[in-house]
């Protein structure tokens, strides 16, 4: 029985690890400026954790294999040195790993989330709601009209609660359901939620951030390649959660300018 356990556990370990190592299922290619750091950190951690995983599973398998030995008169043997080497090993090995991960990891984190956005960022206002995202560009005047929750009316596509009758800055605001951005330009999103918690997740951009009603949460990133990706909601928001999505379209700067001009003309 011990040998069977050891064999099964070894097979499980090898197969599980192999699928990770062969990257049968893996992250989509990164298209963001900060993504390589995250990917690097993830791979480093994965290797370290993978080594620990394989070592402990195989040690378990090996010891179980050997302890099934039923020879007459075999005495039990104590782990060499008792518990002390284990404690030392765990503290030194795991501790060193933790230190390394914390040190490098928090630098990665800090460089993404604790740095102020680029002052030249393109600012886009985001409204998350049950169950869609809407994006607002300030329009030719460069200013966002103010938002009035009581004026939100989806039947007339007033998703941000703008007041064009009285607020002239609101009249040229461009509201679209697709996040359209130029490539290689820092983007600053200001996240609003009008009803419940939502989240902004684009796997290719290596970005995830919750929307919290009542708070305005800034989020900044730079896309480094053109293309179209899905934005999905990752914070449970109700019955349509699974279908709460939008697209992010990364364009060349000239294409973007063209697009923006066309939208402004429609207002």
């Amino acid at each position, binding site marked *: 029985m011990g040998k069977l356990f050891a064999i099964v556990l070894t097979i499980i370990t090898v197969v599980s690890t192999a699928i990770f190592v062969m990257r049968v299922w893996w992250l989509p290619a990164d298209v963001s400026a900060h993504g390589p750091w995250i990917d690097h950190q993830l791979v480093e951690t994965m290797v370290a954790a993978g080594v620990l995983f394989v070592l402990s599973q195989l040690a378990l398998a090996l010891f179980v294999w050997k302890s099934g030995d039923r020879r007459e008169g075999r005495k039990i043997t104590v782990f060499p040195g008792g518990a002390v080497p284990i404690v030392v090993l765990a503290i030194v090995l795991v501790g060193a790993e933790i230190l390394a991960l914390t040190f490098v990891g928090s630098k990665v984190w800090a460089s993404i989330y604790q740095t102020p956005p680029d002052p030249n960022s393109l600012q886009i206002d985001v409204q998350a709601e049950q169950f869609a*995202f809407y994006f607002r560009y300030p329009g030719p005047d460069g200013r966002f009209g103010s938002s009035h929750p009581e004026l939100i009316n989806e039947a007339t*596509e007033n998703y941000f609660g703008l007041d064009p009758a009285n607020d002239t800055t609101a009249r040229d605001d461009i509201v679209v359901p697709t996040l359209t951005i130029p490539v290689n330009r820092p983007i600053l999103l200001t996240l609003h939620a009008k009803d419940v918690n939502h989240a902004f997740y684009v796997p290719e951009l290596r970005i995830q951030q919750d929307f919290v009603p009542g708070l305005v949460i800034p989020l900044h990133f730079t896309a480094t390649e053109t293309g179209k990706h899905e934005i999905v909601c990752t914070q449970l928001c109700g019955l349509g959660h699974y279908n709460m999505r939008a697209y992010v379209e990364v364009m060349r700067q000239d294409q973007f300018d063209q697009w923006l001009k066309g939208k402004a003309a429609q207002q």
Partner: protein
Amino acid sequence: MRTRSMLIPATAVLVLGALARSGVVRAAAAAGAISGTVTYTGTPPKAKPIDMAKEPACAQQHATPVTTEAVVTGPGNALRWVVVYISAGDQGAAASAAGVRYDQKGCQYIPHVVALQVNQPLDIYNSDSNSHNIHPLAKVNPEWNKSQPKGAPPIHTKFEQPEFIPVKCNIHPWMHGYFVVLTTAHSTVTDENGGFTLTGLPPGKYTVTAWHEQFGTQSQEVTISGTETKTIHLVFKATPY
């Protein structure tokens, strides 16, 4: 809810059948009609194109983007989606047993506005390849909110109190419609030319009311004698925002 709503249409059919045979429901003999148009003055808001990027399956169904239906105008200042109904003078009649079909197709409500009689069966279909949720924002009637996945059976329902009920799909926020539940059996919704006809009206004095989801109501008194068809004209005042 479902079991209940399944039962009620069935009973309604039975009861109404019995009523019809016993002659309680008057035949349409000696009845007049009111027809006419609904128009607006002033500047209505622009109909905005709807970008259905979120639901590619729906976006593909529309060669040109559909527009918001809160205010739909036609040639000659015609106003569409106005509910015209008899608000006073109606003799009253039992609810029609004929079910009204309300469809979800291409992420639009078809029709945008449906006029119903109290207790008249309403059958909601999903003709799309994606899920919808139907959320009648009722205040007088019980409010409900229910998903209808692709291939799910139609939802059979009805409303027991007269009410103007906005209905929406939260999954597709642009989808907005109205269930207009009325006590009268005489109601209709204006077409793309703003036209309407109310038929089967016995002689008598009536108040005709037109209701628009943004511009409110307009009323006119009409007296019908014999089998004549009276023509009336209702005008709303439109504002751009």
